[in-house]
């Protein structure tokens, strides 16, 4: 049953090898459509990272968190403050990323501790409020002491760099030329594979089973001796630290952070990725994250030509039309696939039993 170390049948091995090869050449395939598409792929992976982090809180432990973006923001701002001309600090990434994880983890516990008694929607609104509080502070902490530079945000943030090897510039390795976004792709790929492995291992561990028990019935979980308080805090802390790391990479990749990137709608989008894909099911969450990142971008390229082809002119504002279609897609998917696009087998079975 061990999904990582157990002996793999030949066919599965072939599938995995092919998938790995596809992932390795993906940035070069995407580059055919321009570097913009490589960046979109980068963001898809970053959102997979975030969605998997939120999946620990929402999917595994069943705690509805609408303020997840706050941890992403904490990670991003920490990187921005420690590696930019704003304070004149330029720490290397192997210092900032672990620090980002720790600080975000601290914030996770800070949020988790007062909300332990809350259930369902009360928890949702408190986490939402927490996210807003963090964003408002980032927006306003430019006076009297300028910490976050307010709504203008922080610019000229250092990229990820190992020695002199910067991830933001074009460079040639082994005779192949890599663009900045392509290099970030491989970095993100390594990180996200790590996160996926941690997630899979967690799910089948004692901790993962404890979370599942809490999700299904908290009272029963307590009764069989699970320390629900510590387990819930652990879920918040782990989810938060993943968010913190993702935030750091985001800041480095963009070279710029501002409070605008961390609004409530972002939290909601990540939650939508988790739910749309299939809560608690790792492949489903990955699918949801990729789909919800790529779909709005693909629509961006599609709405204008399609309108021209059908009506001969651009009738509706493309930006709002693409979001409109996106919103409709959310509704329709949930309407016809209430458990998500790719729910876990357990979940599918439960639903089937209920409707019988």
């Amino acid at each position: 049953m061990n999904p990582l170390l157990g002996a793999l049948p030949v066919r599965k091995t072939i599938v995995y090898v092919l998938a790995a090869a596809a992932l390795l050449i993906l940035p070069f395939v995407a580059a055919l459509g321009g570097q913009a598409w490589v960046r979109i792929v980068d963001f898809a992976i970053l959102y997979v990272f975030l969605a998997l982090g939120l999946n620990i809180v929402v999917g595994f432990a069943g705690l509805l968190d609408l303020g997840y973006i706050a941890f992403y923001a904490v990670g991003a701002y920490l990187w921005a403050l420690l590696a930019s001309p704003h304070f004149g600090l330029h720490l290397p990434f192997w210092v900032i990323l672990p620090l980002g994880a720790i600080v975000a983890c601290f914030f996770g516990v800070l949020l988790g501790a007062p909300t332990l008694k809350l259930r369902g929607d009360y928890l949702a609104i408190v986490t939402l409020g927490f996210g807003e509080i963090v964003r408002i502070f980032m927006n306003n902490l430019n006076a009297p002491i300028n910490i976050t530079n307010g709504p203008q945000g922080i610019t000229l943030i250092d990229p990820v760099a190992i020695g002199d090897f910067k991830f933001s510039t074009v460079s040639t390795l082994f005779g192949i030329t890599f663009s900045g976004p392509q290099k970030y792709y491989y970095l993100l790929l390594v990180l996200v594979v790590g996160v996926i492995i941690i997630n899979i291992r967690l799910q089948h561990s004692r901790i993962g089973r404890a979370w599942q028990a809490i999700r299904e019935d908290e009272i029963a979980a307590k009764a069989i001796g699970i320390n629900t308080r510590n387990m819930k805090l652990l879920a918040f802390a782990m989810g938060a630290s993943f968010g913190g790391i993702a935030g750091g990479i985001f800041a480095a990749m963009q070279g710029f952070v501002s409070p605008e990137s961390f609004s409530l709608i972002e939290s909601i989008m990540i939650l939508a990725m988790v739910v749309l894909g299939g809560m608690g099911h790792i492949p489903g969450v990955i699918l949801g994250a990729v789909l919800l990142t790529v779909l709005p971008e693909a629509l961006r390229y599609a709405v204008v030509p399609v309108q021209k082809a059908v009506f001969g002119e651009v009738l509706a504002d493309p930006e709002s039309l693409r979001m409109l279609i996106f919103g409709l897609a959310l509704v329709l998917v949930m309407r016809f696939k209430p458990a998500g696009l790719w729910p876990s087998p357990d979940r599918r079975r439960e639903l089937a039993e209920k409707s019988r």
Partner: protein
Amino acid sequence: MDIFLQQVINGLVQGAIYAMVALGYTMVYGIMGLINFAHGEVVMIGTLVAITVVTFLLKLGFPVWLAGGMGIVAAAGVCLVLGWSLERIAYRPLRGAPRLTPLITAIGMSIVLQNLAMMIWGRNYMTFPSIIEKTQYEIGGAAFTNVQVLVVLVAGISMGGLLFLVYRTKLGMAMRATAQNPGVAGLMGVNANRVISSAFVIGSVLGALAGVMVGVYYEIAHYQMGFMLGLKAFTAAVLGGIGNLAGAMAGGVLLGLIEALGAGYIGDLTGGFLGSHYQDIFAFVVLIFVLMFRPSGLFGEKTGDRA
């Protein structure tokens, strides 16, 4: 002292608006256990419809009271249809689905409505035609206008009407029964679908009224205004104990007061370190503190441990 009184007046007016919107959330939640995230957008559309109708009728030379009245009727009508179809499209097909599913459709609908509004009314701020001549009154060194009085009056009357409806009519009895136990209510001959539809419709009409009041009071509207308003109103509903009508009203007024007083005094309290632009965090900080000590809100009944 006059700053205090002034902020209390401002807070009461703002709170009355929050309370009206919060009722829409709490009614739907009380009956279905569902957060209707798109409710804020319904309010926004109410405001924009009213602006369009009133501006148009005033241009045609209609008297002010008629134009205003038609604006309210139009806004209420549009929101009524909107609330009803929202439930039919996004929520009814999903009864019995996992709990988070309707939350996502609600978010989807909210995105759809917001962008639809932007396509119709554009990105720019719209001004509400000033249909009421503003007169200012003074009491104990604090000023208030007749518009503020109107907002509080409309809020008070509509809440009174709602309470009458829920506690004194047959439909209200059906609503309360469905909220307690939909299955048993069904056995007693209550048509749950009709009750739920009417909860959405009533909530949306209240939302439309609130939207018109927002327009009249602030004289400005925008396709994105529904989001923050909805968020605050939902916070108010939770603060009072979600699902509880009186709680939503109290929560709304309380939230308005806290925000106004907080914004008025935070500068003095922190020695100028934090300014009034931190207004928005009060709502959430107070919410977190209240819920720490009363996990089901101020007036919420303690629910069973299985949510």
